[in-house]
């Protein structure tokens, strides 16, 4: 397990570096002078000289990349164009909102989706199974940003029962929770169906295995079989899927933030694009990507812990 962990973490680090390189290269493709892009049109000559020196703009591209990488890894993501605030500060200020939204979305999806999949699996081809199937497909078929817009239309504008915009009053948990309902609902809805189907399919496969049938033959209670044995194994592909799908969740969160006017990294990126605040875009994308890499890493490690077969594949 340890060897696998080491290999896997090593791989993640390499991927982080590649991602860093992609972002670094992206900035190079910007039309215009990199200094003006980074500092904005109001930069004084002193600021330009300082920046040029700090970023080693006279040295080779490789050195520049290493400087950029070192800065990024030590938490220096540069400064925003107009306000000269630290990008890292700006990103980490709003990151909790994005994480909260993603986790809330995924959380409610797991809460509903996994049991739904389970129930459908133990009662295959019954009415419940068919209904679950329809619900699953239905929720997957609607793209998450469309869910966001329709939810806004229906619950906020037409019915007026839920707040439309913002994250709620800081310090007031109830209010923040209220503001979280619609966005989390929208972000997680597609996942309910997805998880339900995944769990159902896995469960059916596992339930067909010999050792399960043996357990049944031995007279173990059905509940025990389902929840202690079958589910444990069936959940594994789901964990992997959640890990990989977290990226999609983050994408959904970006849309939800924009549509519902919530603060968050996604909205920060979008605002910074329109505001031509490239250092912020770069820094925020980097942070999101790093989080995604970490999440997939954790998911993989969890799965590897539970399923030794996977460890061989690295």
């Amino acid at each position, binding site marked *: 397990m340890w060897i696998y962990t080491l290999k896997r973490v090593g791989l993640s680090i390499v991927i982080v570096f590649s991602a860093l390189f992609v972002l670094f290269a992206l900035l190079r493709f910007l039309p215009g002078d990199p200094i003006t892009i980074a500092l904005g049109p*109001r930069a004084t000559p002193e600021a330009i000289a300082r920046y040029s020196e700090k970023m080693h703009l006279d040295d080779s591209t490789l050195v520049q990349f290493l400087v950029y990488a070192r800065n990024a890894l030590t938490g220096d993501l540069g400064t925003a164009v107009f*306000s000269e605030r630290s990008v890292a500060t*700006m990103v980490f200020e709003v990151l909790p909102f994005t994480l909260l939204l993603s986790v809330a979305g995924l959380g409610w999806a797991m809460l509903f989706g996994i049991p739904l999949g389970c129930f459908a699996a133990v009662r295959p081809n019954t009415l419940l199974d068919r209904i679950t199937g329809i619900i699953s497909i239905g929720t997957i078929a609607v793209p998450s940003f469309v869910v966001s817009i329709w939810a806004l239309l229906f619950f906020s504008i037409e019915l*007026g029962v839920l707040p*439309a*915009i913002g994250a709620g009053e800081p310090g007031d948990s109830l*209010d923040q929770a209220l503001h979280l309902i619609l966005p989390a609902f929208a972000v997680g809805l597609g996942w309910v169906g997805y998880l339900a189907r995944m769990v159902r399919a896995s469960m059916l496969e596992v339930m067909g295995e010999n050792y399960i049938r043996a357990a049944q033959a031995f007279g173990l209670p059905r509940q025990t079989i389902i929840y202690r044995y079958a589910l444990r194994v069936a959940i594994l592909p789901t964990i992997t899927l959640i890990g990989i799908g977290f990226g999609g969740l983050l994408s959904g969160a970006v849309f939800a933030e924009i549509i519902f*006017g919530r*603060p968050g990294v996604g909205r920060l990126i979008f605002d910074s694009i*329109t505001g031509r605040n490239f250092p912020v875009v770069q820094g925020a994308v980097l942070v999101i990507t790093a989080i995604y890499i970490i999440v997939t890493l954790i998911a993989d490690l969890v799965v590897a812990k539970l399923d030794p077969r996977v460890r061989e594949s690295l």
Partner: protein
Amino acid sequence: MPTIKLTRRQVLASSLAAGAAGAFGVVPSFGKAQDNVLYVRFDSDLAVIDPGYMVGGVDIETQKAVMPSLVEYATLPDGALGWQATVYCNSVTQRDDLHIDFELKPGFMWTNGYGELTADDVKYSFERMKTTDWSGNFDPMERVDVSGPYTGTIVLNTPFAPFPMVTLAAGPATVLSRKAMDAVGGQFTTEFPATCGPYVLQWAPQQRITFLPNPEWTGPAPAFSEIRALIIEEDRAAELAFEAGEVACTEITPATVARYGDTPPDGSSIKVAGALQYMWMGMNTEHPKLSDIRVRQAIQHAVDVDSVIQGAYSGTTEKSNGIVCPGLVGHRTATKYSYDPEKAAALLEEAGVSGLELDIKTLNVQERILAAQIIQANLGAIGINATVTPVDSGPFWEMGSEAAGEQWKDLELWIMRFGTAPDPYECTQWFRRDQVGVWNWERWSDDEFEALYLEGLSETNSDRRNEIYLRMQEIMEDTGAYLWINHEPETFIYRNDVAIDVYPSGEMDLRDFRPA
């Protein structure tokens, strides 16, 4: 630089983050009441609050609430717009064309221990402005003479009657503390080194801007125990917030103005702050495709501006015939061209042009994109194949600027809107010869226009001024490079339990907000 309002981007960039509590006094829809806290809406986050380098809009609104100024807008007894001294001054008098005397009230203290507000601070602040981005507003000013700890005189270098209205009452004339500025190196971005106003500023970036009462304030007590400015960039999102009881006051879109008609929601009222903006479609006279004046005139005749106003502005804005806004001397009530597609086609034919392809650039704002699409259709009807290119604000404001590169050569057609001050001279300054490649993107000049500009600055007879500015706009129209569109007003909706104060240029003056 023109008073460019911070652009309202598409609703996708809306950014409210807080505020379910209702506005002052009203029980909001989510049952949470607060005492004496006012919730207002800012249409963007603070960018740079140093008056010399600010962007505008909310930067100005913030400065007005926490920093001293000498003069503010006021409605005169006859209903016209004028100016008066602020609470910081015992008096401000325009002694003659070249001198404005002021006398500060003693006892106003800067925060952070920087001592008392003195005339020397005024001298420092205004003279400093001459070397900043907003220096244009202080060009007519020569210097400030200090005659006592609280008294001084603003000395102009040319007779300029509108100076108090245009510069002193508007955004750039914020007074800074010399000592505090020296301590921070003469410039700042997002934090005032020292303030002196009824409120002090507390800022949570991207979320809210809070104004708390200033404990060191010696002037009239602030009306609220707290003002929370929620940052909602898009008007539509702000309207939703208003209807949900989350803000007491916000600007609204033309579509909403049309929707409300004469009956705003219960318990609220609508106030039109002023139509101090002018929008037009400009044409680059030096571009090969547009250098023939007949082509430009054809375009002028091809567009049905009424349908633009109907389609893009829900019929709620006033069609413009020039750049001088309604209510000001020199406001034009008719154009020489009219919507006449046949004439347009004939002009094109006369110019020997067919199959022309043009690009219309516009800021990435929904109403303007819609307007551009209508114009596109109109041009299509006379055989001009036009494309619409929405541009974000960063690149947009540089499109015609020679200093920003070579892109101005490719500029063809674009929709532009400037905000202005309540005096006709202000809007004409951007179309002079020396503005070619700066803000005169149409790239023309005219000797008579130059002469009239100078005459208008020092002329005091309003009939003569009227003639001057009418003629200047006629000259502009005759270049063929201008298609006048409209004067967009700033319309606000507010709860009836609050009395608001908004400038004609659309900024809120929070000092004057009070419970009604």
